């Protein structure tokens, strides 16, 4: 309680919180997240386009790019020289402002020519780029501006059209849903039209298309040399269509020219005049206003004294990541919800919420408690009368995955997250809703996952998915499927669920309930200690549910040291003696004490693979849980050390690619497999736990 109060006091009395991201001087070597998507209020699920700033490839232009959508760039010509590639620039981009939806940077393509760019993803279907070109030299300069735009689709070019009425360009483009989206009937728009407008009349415009290995439908125009230099290199993957505008201006010393390019994406069925009319107001949008709104949103983030610039960048970037993944109520979601990633977009990550990913709310709640609570309300709103909650819950998705007469739910972190969110939001109304829902969920879970009624649960239904460790897990692969085992993971979670419900009941003054939940937690804790602790190896393992032993096919075949063995620490299950024993494995460099965090499997295992999903990688959200457990047991130095190692690798990757990854290697500067993954944002909470002055 004292901690929370102090935090709120800090937030209240430190002016200008959030201003950090408005006053950056970040280069490509800084650990800054540089992906952008529309703000919650202007987001839309079915047609949503995010962009990333590409400014770390010397061979490419400084461009706003997307994995399956349009891309923006700008080339400038001075005299006979055209520059756009990073390596050609006189001074590389310096980012001055970066929030989840808007970006400002400047660079010098030529010594005295300064280009300032403000790029805003205004809505899911529109974006604009303000470009200001200044002559900082002492002589007049004639500069040719060549904004370019490209998109991987050769079919688009032939249909490129110009609207005389709006002096804009439009062309069709198609998006292809991946197989997961198709299987789950995710209703994203696939047949679109792109609209391009500018307030700078071009002297000429050239559009052209390429197919890898052969140029197709090349139009002739006055900028052949630029087209050659710009485009040939762009054909890195498959097919590209590109369009260039070209405008030559004269700038006196000290003079600037500013223009704006607006891009819109609309469903192909929308009439072009309607689309253009919809985009026209974007010319009047004031970027300063958008930045002010962002500053206000980010102002709630606690200001903490961090040891260096890298940590600062990481900290603020985490919030941009989580904020960006949040979308406004739509479809079946009566409240705002999150997706795992908006740019790039892939089916699995664009379906809906899962408890596992919701662990990121433990950090996000500091930024926007209401939005975090609403995200949890999405689960509550979709709960079935018997207490069941979907495996995945999205605006257009209820994923239940029936198996063996059971529905798959999500690993039971529901009450734990609700309580943690409440601790920051202090919203009792939310707590009441959450308690009612959480109680039902807990009861549903133990009723349906304790098949032998011995007080310990196993994973049920499609257990590998439900367990969250859903790919190539050593124990699932080598021994047997999850429903055969009662594990320290699911039961520790249930201990924490019961304990959270107890705490919620206590706050809600339901003292009897509280005691009952606490008793349940204690009972389960005792069972875990009795059955899952192995005195020989000093570790917690899965046990075979039929005999509570470590043998399934053969003797001790369940004694595989996995990260789940540390969850009893997080759940407060372990005795101090067991905790001390566990620490031996945790501190062993040949097992879990790896250079960049605690791996999900002991490095001594033949199955260990530092980037093999649950057989080695560092999952930041699990590192957080582990660190929480260590702190609670008084192992603060270990927690700090693990935090540092994990964050170091995240920072390294942010500096390299400016993205967050799904997981990181415990051994090297490697990471995989999906980018811009919401739960990496929990690193902010690790920094708060480590550095917030308490």
């Amino acid at each position: 309680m004292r901690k929370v109060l102090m935090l709120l006091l800090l937030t209240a009395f430190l002016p200008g919180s959030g201003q950090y991201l408005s006053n950056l001087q970040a280069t490509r070597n800084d650990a800054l997240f540089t992906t952008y998507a529309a703000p919650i209020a202007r987001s839309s699920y079915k047609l949503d386009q995010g962009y990333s700033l590409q400014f770390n490839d010397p061979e490419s232009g400084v461009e706003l790019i997307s994995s399956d959508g349009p891309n923006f760039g700008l080339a400038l010509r001075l005299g006979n020289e055209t520059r756009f590639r990073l390596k050609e620039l006189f001074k590389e981009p310096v980012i001055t402002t970066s929030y989840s939806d808007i970006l400002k940077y400047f660079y010098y393509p030529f010594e005295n020519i300064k280009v300032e760019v403000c790029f805003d993803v205004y809505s899911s279907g529109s974006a604009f780029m303000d470009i200001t070109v200044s002559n900082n030299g002492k002589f007049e300069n004639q500069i040719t501006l060549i904004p370019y735009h490209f998109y991987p689709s050769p079919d688009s070019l032939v249909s490129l059209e110009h609207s005389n009425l709006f002096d804009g360009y439009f062309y069709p483009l198609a998006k292809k849903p991946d197989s997961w989206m198709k299987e789950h009937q995710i209703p994203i728009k696939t047949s679109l039209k792109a609209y391009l407008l500018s307030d700078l009349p071009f002297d000429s415009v050239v559009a052209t298309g390429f197919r890898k290995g052969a140029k197709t439908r090349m139009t002739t125009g006055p900028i052949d040399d630029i087209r050659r230099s710009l485009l040939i290199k762009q054909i890195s993957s498959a097919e590209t269509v590109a369009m260039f505008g070209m405008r030559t201006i004269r700038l006196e010393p000290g003079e600037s020219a500013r223009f704006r390019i607006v891009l819109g994406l609309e469903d192909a069925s929308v009439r072009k005049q309607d689309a253009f009319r919809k985009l026209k107001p974007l010319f009047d949008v004031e970027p300063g206003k958008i930045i002010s709104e962002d500053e206000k949103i980010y102002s709630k983030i606690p200001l903490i004294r961090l040891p260096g610039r890298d940590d600062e960048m990481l900290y603020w970037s985490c919030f941009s990541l989580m904020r960006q993944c949040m979308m406004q109520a739509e479809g079946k979601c009566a409240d705002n919800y999150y997706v795992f990633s908006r740019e790039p977009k892939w089916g699995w990550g664009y379906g809906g919420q899962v408890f596992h990913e919701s662990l990121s709310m433990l950090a996000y709640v500091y930024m926007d408690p209401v939005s975090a609570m609403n995200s949890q309300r999405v689960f509550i709103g979709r709960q079935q009368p018997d207490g069941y909650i979907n495996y995945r819950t999205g605006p257009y998705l209820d994923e239940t995955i029936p198996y063996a007469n059971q529905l798959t739910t999500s690993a039971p972190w529901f009450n734990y997250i609700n309580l943690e969110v409440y601790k920051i939001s202090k919203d009792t109304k939310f707590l009441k809703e959450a308690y009612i829902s959480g109680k039902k969920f807990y009861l549903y879970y133990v009723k349906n996952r304790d098949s032998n009624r011995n007080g310990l649960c196993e994973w049920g239904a499609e257990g590998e998915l439900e367990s969250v460790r859903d790919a190539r897990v050593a124990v699932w692969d080598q021994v047997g499927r999850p429903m055969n085992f009662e594990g320290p993971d699911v039961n520790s979670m249930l201990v924490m669920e019961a304990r959270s419900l107890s705490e919620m009941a206590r706050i809600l003054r339901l003292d009897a309930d509280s005691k009952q939940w606490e008793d349940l937690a204690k009972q389960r804790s005792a069972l875990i200690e009795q059955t899952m602790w192995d005195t020989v190896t000093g570790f917690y393992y899965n046990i075979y549910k039929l005999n509570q032993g470590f043998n399934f096919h053969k003797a001790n075949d369940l004694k595989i040291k996995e990260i789940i063995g540390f969850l009893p620490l997080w759940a407060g299950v372990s005795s101090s003696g067991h905790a001390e024993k566990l620490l031996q494995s945790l501190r062993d460099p040949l097992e879990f004490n790896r250079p960049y965090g605690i791996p999900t499997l002991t490095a001594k295992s033949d199955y260990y693979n530092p980037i093999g999903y649950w057989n080695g990688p560092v999952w930041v959200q699990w590192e957080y849980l582990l660190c929480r457990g260590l702190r609670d047991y008084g192992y603060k130095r270990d927690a700090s050390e693990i935090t540092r190692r994990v964050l170091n690798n995240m920072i390294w990757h942010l500096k390299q690619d400016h993205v967050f990854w799904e997981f990181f290697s415990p051994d090297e500067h490697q990471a995989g497999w999906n980018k811009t993954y919401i739960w990496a944002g929990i690193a902010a909470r690790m920094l708060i736990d480590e550095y917030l002055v308490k």
Partner: protein
Amino acid sequence: MINRISICFFIFIIFPFSTVPAQAIKGKSIQNHSIKLSGKDKKGDQNSGPRIAFLSDVPYGSADTVIRSCYSFLKNQPKSECDFITAIELAKHPSAVKKYTILFYLKNERNPIPSGLKDEKTLEAVNEYLINGGKLLLSGFAMHYLVDLGLETVEASDSMKPCNDDGVGRKLGFHALTDHPVFRGMNGGAYILRPLKDQDVGVCGYFGDKLPARGKVIGVDWDYIFLREESKLLIEYDPGKGKVLAIGGYMDFSQPNLNRLHLEKFTLNCLRYLTDSSKGIAGHYWDYSPNTVTACAEDSIPAVKKLLKPGFYWQEPEDQLAMERRLSSNEFWDVAGERLLTMGTENGGIEEVWSHPFMAFRDYEVGIKFDYRDTIYWLNDQRPEVTAHPAYFCRQYKFPRAFLKEIIVNDPVEPAGALHYEYKGVYGAELFIRFTSNFRWMWPYSEKVTGSICCTWLDDLQAFRISDKSGMLNLFFGSNKPAIQKIIGQFSGFTIDKNYKASGFSTTRFQAAGFLHYRLEMNDELDVIYASGNEGGRSVREYYEKYSAAPDKLFQNAIEHSGELLKNRLMITSPDANFNRGYRWAVVSADKFFVNTPGIGKSLVAGYASTKHGWDGAQKVSGRPGYAWYFGRDGQWSGFALLGEGDYEKVRSELEFYQKYQDLNGKILHEASTSGVVHYDASDATPLYIILAGRYFRYSNDTAFLRLSWPCIHKAIDFCFSTDTDKDHLIENTNVGHGWVEGGELYGSHATLYMTGCWIEALKEASNMAAFMKEQDKDKYRNEAGLIQRIINTDFWNANTSFYNYGKNIDGSFRSEPTVLPAVPLSFGLADREKAGLVLKQLGSNTFTTNWGVRIVSDNSRLFKPTGYHYGSVWPLFTGWTSMAEYKYGNSLQGFSHLMNNLNVYKTWAMGNVQEVLNGAVYQPSGVCAHQCWSETMVIQPALEGLLGLNVDAGKRQLKLAPALPADWDSLEVKNIRMGNKTISLQFKRSVTTLSYMFNSKFNDSTVIEFSPMLPAGTRILSCKLNQNDVPFTEEITPAGTGIKLELKPAGKDLLEFEFRDGISVLPVVEDPKAGYPSEGLRILDAGLRGRVYSVLTENKAGGSGEIRVWLNGLNIDHVENGTILSIGGNICTLQIMYPDLGKKYTEVAVNICLK
């Protein structure tokens, strides 16, 4: 039209040949006489030497000078006899031939073989003579006699060979395939004719596709740097017990011949070979059979099935020098050991692997297929993260759900390398490898020389073997994992069907292509190992077996090697991290050029690039991997730096190499391909060799080596003297070779300042060595050096240009074009101080200096072309020369700027490497090689000789150190300063009022260190103490700085401390240019303190602005003229300077900092 052939026909034996004097024996008369053709020849019975019958178409009295001079040469050989007989005489008495050891038939006229020689009895007699062991030498058009004798069925052809001086001299001769006894002492080939006039020379032989049916081709036509393999001029026959040599031209003893020595040596070699061919070096013959690719016969080495040891994870050490590129580019990289050179571009694969003297394989590519996808991803199409390490090159490919790391490494000494793969994936995968190999011999041999190759799969080794026809060249290529598929044959490539089964595309192209397919589990390692060499299959196989059993040993060896270099070589640690890093990279990158070619030697090669770069040698398939072969001048300039950094062993090996291939006349090679062909086109390699030998002696005190080498050194000195034909004391380029400039507008002086400067320095070193050798010539050399030094400061000085003339013409006039080349004599300290100042001011200005180095000519020269190899481009070599010259004359600000120009190149293109040539207008490469030896050493040498002022004379126990550090360097550590077999280290620290220098040595002799640091202008020294005791010192106060000088005798740990006050210095301008950017920038032309005004003369582009930083200690600025103070932080003041446009390209501004 000269329709004449240089012909000789002699029969002769000399014994012993090695002591034959170069000229005819004095006192032995040359006379013609007809032999007595019947009866007993008493003389012949009495003489133990060979008897030669010199056969001529005409009597001596009617013979021309070619016939007469050849006969005369033979006649005058000691211990031999030579009789002149005519064809008519022989026809009359054919049986007389039996009396002779050798029948020598010279025919220089293009007319029929005389009927007498074709007479049946004559032919019968000659054939009988040969069958019974007689020897026949047919010279010139006498080759036609082969058919008449029935030795040959295919008639030879006649041809005219133009011999014109197109700027590279007139050189005609023959070359063997590697070597043959007729070229004994001449490295496998001989230019036997170097006439003084242009002419066409008649030759007789087999041209184009035409081949002798029965003869073996010993030598082909060789002119300049071209082997004319299609012109077979030197043929051998072995009838019965006899032997026949047919030499189709060039044996002309009559006309002035710069290579007379070579002609004589070759002639005597031929005669010796005819009479005593069983001794000495093995003979090789040109093979014109079509190149084929076949399956190898069963391996003669017994197959022992070996258990493959699976690969494992390689732990990469923490490496402060590692250079990363997050996204690969198309830039060059190389991994080089003494035996193997592996090269490629960053994106993927390997372009070429050279196992000197041949290309082991090329076009290595890898594809990967994941279990969850059908696609094979070829790595060359990816953009991995790449890291260059001093010891290896690493790529990391990131695919969805899989990472693949590739480490490419070669053993630093042995001919083996590996590609190590670490696969980490959620799913398993399959790896596909393809490569080609044609065993291309190094230039100047053509692609046809390889002959046939065979290839096979060795199941016991799980490796391919490719071998040439001789069995000497071999490649073993395989892995430590069993292959799923292995295909090799004469293929242009492979197709892979939907089941991933590969099959090759047949081709007529001469190459073998291999394909391998491996399985990778989700956490797996695999090593591709290769061993290749020219020592025969058994040896190479042993290397392969050794490293396939432990490929990680290659990795460890390479890391240890680079670690040892950094530990043991002279290391400088300054406050500038970039300097420290760049210097270390230069040390390890220069070391990669030390190449060992079995049978050839160990020395430095010049530059690395694959064969697709640069000139292809006028051959269909290029055999020139950049400049990856041995050079004289490149190796010598580089050797200076190696001496400074303490690598005496490599320099000794280098010197041994030059001595081994020293020409008969004492000249040192210009280039020697690793295939063993040696050229002597350059004139500077010989004086530079003398300098290197002299410096090696001074640094190492290796007196034994000097004694051993003195004959070669002396011969080289004599050669240089001999090139001063007009006796003006200047060694010449005319008829000797190019000096620095090899072509273009600047080419062509009779004598150049560059050469003269080198010669003076060579004479000084020669004098020092001669003194040790107690040679009387020591004074002659020293006096000559002094005399020539006066000449360059008078005759070569041009008051109109305030510059030294470039060269002297044959008519005594001078070429005045200002170039960077005076930097060379200046770097040796040969210029008058005042003149040096004028020259250096120009070299330091924008006209010569770009943001990345110094051009050979100024940008306002009529010759200037930014890409011109010798007329506009920037060479790190030039920049290094300039830097050293600047340090030599106290311009340390500019010296440091130029040093850093070179150093900074390592960051931009090929990571860790310095380019051969840069464009003179924009910052981009402009040469052949991305990695050049002397570009690397021109980071090291200016740092050692300039920045540290290092000079060593171990024999005299003298060590000189004259550090001239940037004023803001408040610390410095120099480790491993080597002198002979001892080392010393130096640690410098500066506080506000104290300078401390800690010397750490283990000297127990009377070594004296002459220590003379240069301190910032205005520095006042209050005291000087050595180990807390006052020591005497001298102080020289100049506007540029305060020079201190003292001597100390080190004895363990010696602390030298100065108490000082005040000091001011502008900091050197260090450009960090961006690729593709233009050359202009701020230059500091001069700086000095006069009274209370510190003045900095700067220059910049007109209309521009710039900043300088000034270091001040205990001094305060009152005001600044022509500049604006931007900031003062600590003791650094930053000033802005504006450069008005005064109508010239560049504007000079003198900034005056007026002190309180």
